[in-house]
């Protein structure tokens, strides 16, 4: 299904685990350095109300004075677990795109604030870069370096799977529970 800007609470609450979405609008990259910076009280250089944060450190090069995205897949989200939920609440971030899923704290905040976790396919840097149609800006690049900067990407039908929703469901929690049971039986 299509998920188009503006990313309102109503649209996000309508999503459920297992849904395949295609996102159109502006999304912001933000990973380890950005999350720590915001958590430590740093001022966001962009308006994060009803925004989508993408856990991604892209390869972007300047060609003929223009930014060109060479690769842009997701990075592992679990590292942002301590920060994500509170930042979603504080700034009105509606959705997080990443890979590997997040933990119970983020899931709780998704329920509380009307948020969702969208799983992009890890390693699929070309398929995903293809859906970035324009680079609208870059922030904090001097401070954190290119992969850790906030890149403003205009995306068109960017694909992801809902793996944590605002109704308390998490595909990651489910797979972990089932595989752990199986693991115990293998160990005997």
């Amino acid at each position, binding site marked *: 299904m299509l998920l188009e800007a503006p990313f309102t609470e109503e649209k996000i609450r309508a999503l459920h685990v*297992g849904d395949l979405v295609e996102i159109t609008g502006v999304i912001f990259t933000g990973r380890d350095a950005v999350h720590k910076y915001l958590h430590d009280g740093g001022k966001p250089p962009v308006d994060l109300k009803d925004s989508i944060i993408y856990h991604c450190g*892209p390869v972007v090069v300047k060609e003929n004075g223009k930014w060109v995205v*060479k690769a842009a897949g997701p990075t592992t989200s679990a590292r942002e677990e301590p920060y994500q939920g509170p930042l979603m609440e504080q700034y009105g971030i509606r959705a997080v795109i990443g890979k590997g899923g997040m933990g119970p704290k983020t899931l709780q905040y998704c329920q509380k604030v009307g948020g969702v976790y969208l799983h992009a396919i890890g390693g*699929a840097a070309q398929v995903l870069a293809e859906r970035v149609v324009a680079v609208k800006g870059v922030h904090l690049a001097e401070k954190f*370096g290119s992969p850790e900067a906030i890149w403003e990407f205009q995306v068109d039908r960017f694909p992801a799977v809902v793996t944590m929703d605002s109704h308390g469901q998490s595909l990651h929690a489910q797979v972990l529970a089932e*595989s752990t049971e199986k693991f115990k039986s293998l160990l005997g």
Partner: protein
Amino acid sequence: MDAKVLQKNLLELIRRTSAELPSDVVRAIEAGARKEAAGSNAKYAFDVIRENIGMAKVKSQPLCQDTGTIIVYAELPSWCDEKTFRKAYEKATAEATKVGYLRQNSVDAITGANSGDNLGPGSPSFHFHQASGKALTVRMMLKGGGCENVSTQYSLPDARLGAGRDLEGVRRCILDSALQAQGKGCGPGILGVCVGGDRGTGYIAAKETLFREMDDVNEDPRLAKLEKRILKEANSLGVGPMGFGGATTLMGVKITHRNRVPASFFVSVAYMCWAFRRNGFVLSEGGRITRWLYPS
């Protein structure tokens, strides 16, 4: 050989490694994809992965944006000393970064500053050996941070796993590593494992064993049997690609061993993601590549 010719060949090696997945890995991915149910999230993950492999090759762009730690093994003949090789490789790396074959991926661990050209203390990570013949053999691997972060080391005995100092204990550790990595390491993964060694040599040997071909059989029948068993058992866990649930959790297990001291018994696991980027070539003194080691 002219240093510029060496540099040009190394740049091509870096480009191929970043953009083209070797055919043995592609075959394993295709085999995994066939096992997943139509319409499942796992099948979807494989579809995107397969599309991505083709696109990266055609566009000559990084398969994955995390172009990883650059790990280099060079067997140097008498005509190429370490300093010459290092300099040529570093120049090729800076050039590869500039044109976007590699991400700016080298960060000062103390200040957090990105060097911008992938150069700095320990990056690239070089391993030099003396060649027995006249050819220069280079192997390289790009190992992303997601899969490196889920690599792990066990010290036996391990009470949590009920793992003692024997092959059964080793099996328990390796299965646990596959369980713990779920989702986070960009599965389906490939495990390089070293039994024994010290903490440093164990991890190095675990990574080196990833240079084996995906579909080869371990020369040691005890380890061949263990590899086969663990692969089957790990895939019965149901973790699946990306941790979405599914039939393919791992695509390969490669086990090696090093002698240990009586007091230590380490099991080191190097987890490699599906974007298993490794390549290499054999270069003649005349500057001609006579063989690619892992053709795409």
